């Protein structure tokens, strides 16, 4: 392993965050606080409780998931697309590094950023509502796995994207709807039966459900199913990444 290279990529990617703290860290916190005001206070006044949990507290896991998924995708996709766009990608190709090391560097950095954001949101949420985390270790595992998986997804999007439009289109048209319809703000049980069935095809549902279980021990699907789902998702992303690099698709002519 070329650890120096992994470190170089990782620190240089993290450096971008430090240079742009407003965009990287403050903006997700602000938008989360807005969600709290809108969903937690406005709607929460009418709903009050979901499955025996205060609505404001109920949405916290979903909100964290929503943000880290979107952040992981956008950070990682931009991180790898940017060198392609400005032409510095040659440096990665000509360095004595394997594709695995490139992935670890970029995906590791993107995942770290969203993990930090997730924890900041968690801390922010603690100011608004009373939080209870029943299974902290499991909670953290879900968080880390989701960050890594969606960073990988973003990495794939960044490699495949031909231009900035495509870079934003996939997250906008695919990731955002899945994430919003994955039960961040409601329990699936609240939906009409038909939409319940549809929702079960949404992989994000399983992640949010499992994550929420690690807080309140309530879930839409069994926590084992959730873990299996995230493992499957992670594996699928790894397989696609491996294929991309093996064939050099959109990487190397």
């Amino acid at each position, binding site marked *: 392993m070329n650890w*120096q*290279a992994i470190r170089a990529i990782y620190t240089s990617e993290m450096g971008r965050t430090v240079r742009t703290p407003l965009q990287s860290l403050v903006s997700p916190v602000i938008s989360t606080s807005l969600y709290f005001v809108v969903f937690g206070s406005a709607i929460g006044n009418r709903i009050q409780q979901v499955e025996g949990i205060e609505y404001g507290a109920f949405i916290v896991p979903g909100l964290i998931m929503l943000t880290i998924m979107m952040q992981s995708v956008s950070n990682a996709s931009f991180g790898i697309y940017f060198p392609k766009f400005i032409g510095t990608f040659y440096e990665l190709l000509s360095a004595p590094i394997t594709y695995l090391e490139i992935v670890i560097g970029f995906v590791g950095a993107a995942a770290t950023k969203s993990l930090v954001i997730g924890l900041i949101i968690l801390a922010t949420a603690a100011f608004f509502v009373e939080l209870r985390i029943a299974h902290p270790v499991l909670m953290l595992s879900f968080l880390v796995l989701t960050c890594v998986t969606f960073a990988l997804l973003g990495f794939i999007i960044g490699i495949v994207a031909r231009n900035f439009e495509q870079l934003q289109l996939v997250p906008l048209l695919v990731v955002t709807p899945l994430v919003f319809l994955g039960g961040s703000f409601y329990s699936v049980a609240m939906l009409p039966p038909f939409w319940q069935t549809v929702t079960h095809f949404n992989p994000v549902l399983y992640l949010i459900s499992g994550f929420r279980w690690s807080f309140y021990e309530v879930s839409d699907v069994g926590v084992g199913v959730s873990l299996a789902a995230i493992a499957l998702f992670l594996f699928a992303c790894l397989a696609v990444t491996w294929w991309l690099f093996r064939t050099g698709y959109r990487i190397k002519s």
Partner: protein
Amino acid sequence: MTAIVDIRDLTKTYGSGHQALKGVSLQIAQGEILALLGPNGAGKTTMISVICGITNPTSGTVTVAGHDIIRDFRAARATIGLVPQEVALEPFANVADTVAYTRGLFGKAPAPDRIEAILRNLSLWDKRNAQVNELSGGMKRRVLIAKALSHEPRVLFLDEPTAGVDVELRKDMWRIVGELREGGVTIILTTHYIEEAEAIADRVGVINHGQLLLVEDKATLMARMGRKEMLIELQEPVSALPEALSGYSLERNGAGDVLTYAYDSQAARTGITRLLSDLNAAGLNVRDVQTRQSSLEEIFVGLVKEDA
């Protein structure tokens, strides 16, 4: 000679179907400076990109320092530094960081002293904390060079390092190339400035349409360049050369009013004085005399034209 870069039958066909390299074989010795000349689109950058791992070869093999560039890419690439033709740099990074980044990518532990020495040598030390996008074009090119040197490569590729840079930087470049060569670094550079090849190269290669037309010692080429020509313009055209002048290597042009005399400018006697008096004796009146030297440029242009 054990070649530090050994290229055998290298071909490259791009996805578009364009064959950019058509079987190039080239051995480059440790410590030499090879200049690659060739018109736009000849395949110079393609060849460098294949060796450095930026594009895949279609067929053929390349080893660098004895390591196959595909099977043993880690060891091969670790020895290579590359200054690309296009200036591409992360715009928001600062100068020292971006140079240190390259060193890291190449697997070397951080060495601030080493980076400092490189930056000082390239007159970038004052700019070490500046953002890359605050630099002028020439300075950006220096940063590219600093990056390429950051991991102490044994083989350095310079793809048109002096395109669009001022005289000072060009001279700086030549000086640095000289210093690196002292340290045993092998340098392959492409250039459109023939005087650059003349000034610093040990060997010169000419490439066109993806084929290597010639690789020759600069000294041999210079010897060829040592041939000078004198053009003698006559007042009256002659239909044939007088018998008395048959001892000279003289050529008559089409109209017969210009004679071309080829001679070796390095020789002790050029024979010019004697020729002129013999011309006079033969009754030919000289109106004007010109001399010209065949330059590397002419050799190069001639080769490329022949190949077209």
